[in-house]
């Protein structure tokens, strides 16, 4: 066998760099899921009665539902009775300054390379750090408050902003939307809540770092972002997780709402533990993300860079209801070793003159499988709708797979739908060409990947872009040579 073939075969000597555990006392719910679990979680969070009712309704819906099987991913049956549905830090205290933050957590920040002090000062990022299920710190609250912006944990919002939560929670992703959304609705532990009032431009990027920390604890984050008329917000979600042997389920729900002339930009850099070289362990990431452009001229833009998880199942979508509204989806999904990803988007055109743009860049290495699944719906009411989709696949080596499943449902033909797809490969000849110009395999791959993903990267805020590039290099380290 050719030497380079062998090299491509020696897939990934790259150990997960962020694999460490933070040692903080936990408070767990009993293992398994029942009505009592739902009541326990609600009680723990001191929720009002209406919230408990809402959760129970979701739980009952979930009991009648079945796990979806249509995705192009394969994994052993999940035993939902072996999961712990709630873990919170024992010592609860109010944190006013960073000095009050648990040193263990500070240490975690350091290992992740996120100097919060610096981030605070330099980048102007308010970091709402979710350690397991509990928000531990929220900075910049004051300056946001001045503008009337609400940025807090969803638990707090349930207590303090019940009317807003009642109005919007489940309005974009209904409880019975899908199996995992129903599960999330029943047992969600925490997450972020953002409300931007009329005419306000959020002066800084809002950011949350998620981290799965407790062994065997499913993570059920719930995020709700509302941009009122004429407002703007950019929200960053990033996460890394410690190394684990057992599969961990993550089933988050994110809901976005934009009113007239409002815009939400939602960016994700996701790097959860993908499992080891043999495909053991790793996070199952089954996420429901959806936004609705409720108002005229509003815009929702999803940008995601996905490098982690053993299995990813995720379709950030836009419902373009308001006339002239715009939906965007920019995605880089990397799979290596035995990772499986089935990801894409749905653009649902309802309003007139609505526009959507899809740019999907899949990168497969090792023995991984990477599927793009995209749906464009143009409803009867959507005159002059326009969609452009660009779906590219890049293969590294010849043991991996890329699949594209575009679905079109056009009920109004006054508009235009454009689809373009390409597949390229980083093979031996390409690597040798780069070698011959003096580049090592690593340098060549990193250069090619960055060029290939440029269109998506440039959608990210500056500091996130750097982080994303780093993550990509890390996750493809050793995929050749």
């Amino acid at each position: 066998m050719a030497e380079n073939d062998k090299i491509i075969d020696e897939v990934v000597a790259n150990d997960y760099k962020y694999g460490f555990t933070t040692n903080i006392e936990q408070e767990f719910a009993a293992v398994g899921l029942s009505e009592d679990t739902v009541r326990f979680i609600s009680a723990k969070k001191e929720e009002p009665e209406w919230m408990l009712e809402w959760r129970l309704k979701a739980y009952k819906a979930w009991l009648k539902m079945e796990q979806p099987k249509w995705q192009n991913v394969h994994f052993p049956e999940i035993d939902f009775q072996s999961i712990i549905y709630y873990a919170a830090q024992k010592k609860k205290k109010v944190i006013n300054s960073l000095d009050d933050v648990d040193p263990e957590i500070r240490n975690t920040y350091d290992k992740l390379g996120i100097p919060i002090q610096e981030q605070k000062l330099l980048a102007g990022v308010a970091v709402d750090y979710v350690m397991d299920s509990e928000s531990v710190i929220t900075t910049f609250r004051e300056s946001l408050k001045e503008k009337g912006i609400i940025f807090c944990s969803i638990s707090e919002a349930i207590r303090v902003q019940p009317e807003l939560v009642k109005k919007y929670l489940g309005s974009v992703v209904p409880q019975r939307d899908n199996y995992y959304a129903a599960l999330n609705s029943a047992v969600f532990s925490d997450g972020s809540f953002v409300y931007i009032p009329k005419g306000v431009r959020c002066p800084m990027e809002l950011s949350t770092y998620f981290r799965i920390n407790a062994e065997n604890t499913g993570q059920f984050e719930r995020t709700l972002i509302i941009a009122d008329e004429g407002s703007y917000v950019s929200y960053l979600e990033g996460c890394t997780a410690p190394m684990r042997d057992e599969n961990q389920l993550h089933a988050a729900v994110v809901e976005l709402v934009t009113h007239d002339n409002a815009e939400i930009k939602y960016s994700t850099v996701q790097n959860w533990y993908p499992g080891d070289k043999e495909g053991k362990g790793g996070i199952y990431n089954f996420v429901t993300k959806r936004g609705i452009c409720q108002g005229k001229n509003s815009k929702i833009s999803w940008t995601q860079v996905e490098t982690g998880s053993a299995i990813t199942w995720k379709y950030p979508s836009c419902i373009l209801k308001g006339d002239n509204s715009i939906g965007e989806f920019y995605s880089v999904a990397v799979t290596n070793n035995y990772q499986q990803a089935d990801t894409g988007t749905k653009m649902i055109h309802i309003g007139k003159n609505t526009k959507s743009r899809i740019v999907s860049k899949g990168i497969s290495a090792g023995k991984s499988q990477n599927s793009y699944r995209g749906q464009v719906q143009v409803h009867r009411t959507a005159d002059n709708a326009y969609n452009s989709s660009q779906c590219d696949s890049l293969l590294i080596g010849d043991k991996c797979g890329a699949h594209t499943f575009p679905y079109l449902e056009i009920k109004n033909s006054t508009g235009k739908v454009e689809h373009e797809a390409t597949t390229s490969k980083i093979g031996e000849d390409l690597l040798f060409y780069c070698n011959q110009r003096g580049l090592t395999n690593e340098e060549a791959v990193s250069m090619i990947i960055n060029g290939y993903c440029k269109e998506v990267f440039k959608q990210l805020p500056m500091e996130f872009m750097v982080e994303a590039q780093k993550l990509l290099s890390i996750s493809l380290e050793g995929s050749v040579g």
Partner: protein
Amino acid sequence: MLSIKNLNVGIAEKQILKDFNLEIKPGEIHAIMGPNGTGKSTLASTLAGKEDYEVLSGEVTFNGKNLLEMSADERAREGVFLAFQYPVEIPGVSTTNFMKAAVNAKRKHQGLEPMDAKDFLKLMREKMALVEMNKEFTSRSVNEGFSGGEKKRNEIFQMAMLEPTLCLLDETDSGLDIDALRIVANGVNKLRDDKRSFLVITHYQRLLNYIVPDYVHVMYGGKIVKSGGKELALKLEEQGYDWIKEENSELV
């Protein structure tokens, strides 16, 4: 500067180069001609370090160093350049970014700082002029959608950028019309100096009207069977390879 001694090379269990010998001194241009499938590209690829080619025995010394011990990228940084017979497309990477990475990889190897952006662009402009390359090519992805001739020109442009000491040209003239041929040859001639050596693989004598070689070698059955001056190329042009094949029928 390059010394090849008794080189035997095989690929896929088949021996291609057989006791191959060649000496190239600084500043010399050597042309290699020969029928298809005789091992010319194998020679170029082996010198450049392509791993598919298995060196069975022999020695290759380049500027006093054992070339065969170096990886392909090391050889490139040490000053070996191969202008490919079939240049590869690099999706999503502009020629500018590609050259920036390559130039800086070489500079790092020499213990130099990365080139400053202004100097780099100046260098790009200068070398583009050398092969009369249009500016728009540098912002397009490397070789993507380039015509055959444009790809070859891009090879010579890259060669000019990287300033190698040993230039291997594998059928750079194939598929070029007469204007492109002249441009490519001019580019090469401008890069000629008393330290830089060339190994020019070609099928056609016409290239050697423009790039005048010091030596012409005829390769057949995996080795050089005849060497001479530039007049040897003319004879091959007139008489073809049949007389070579007859003289060396025992080699195949």
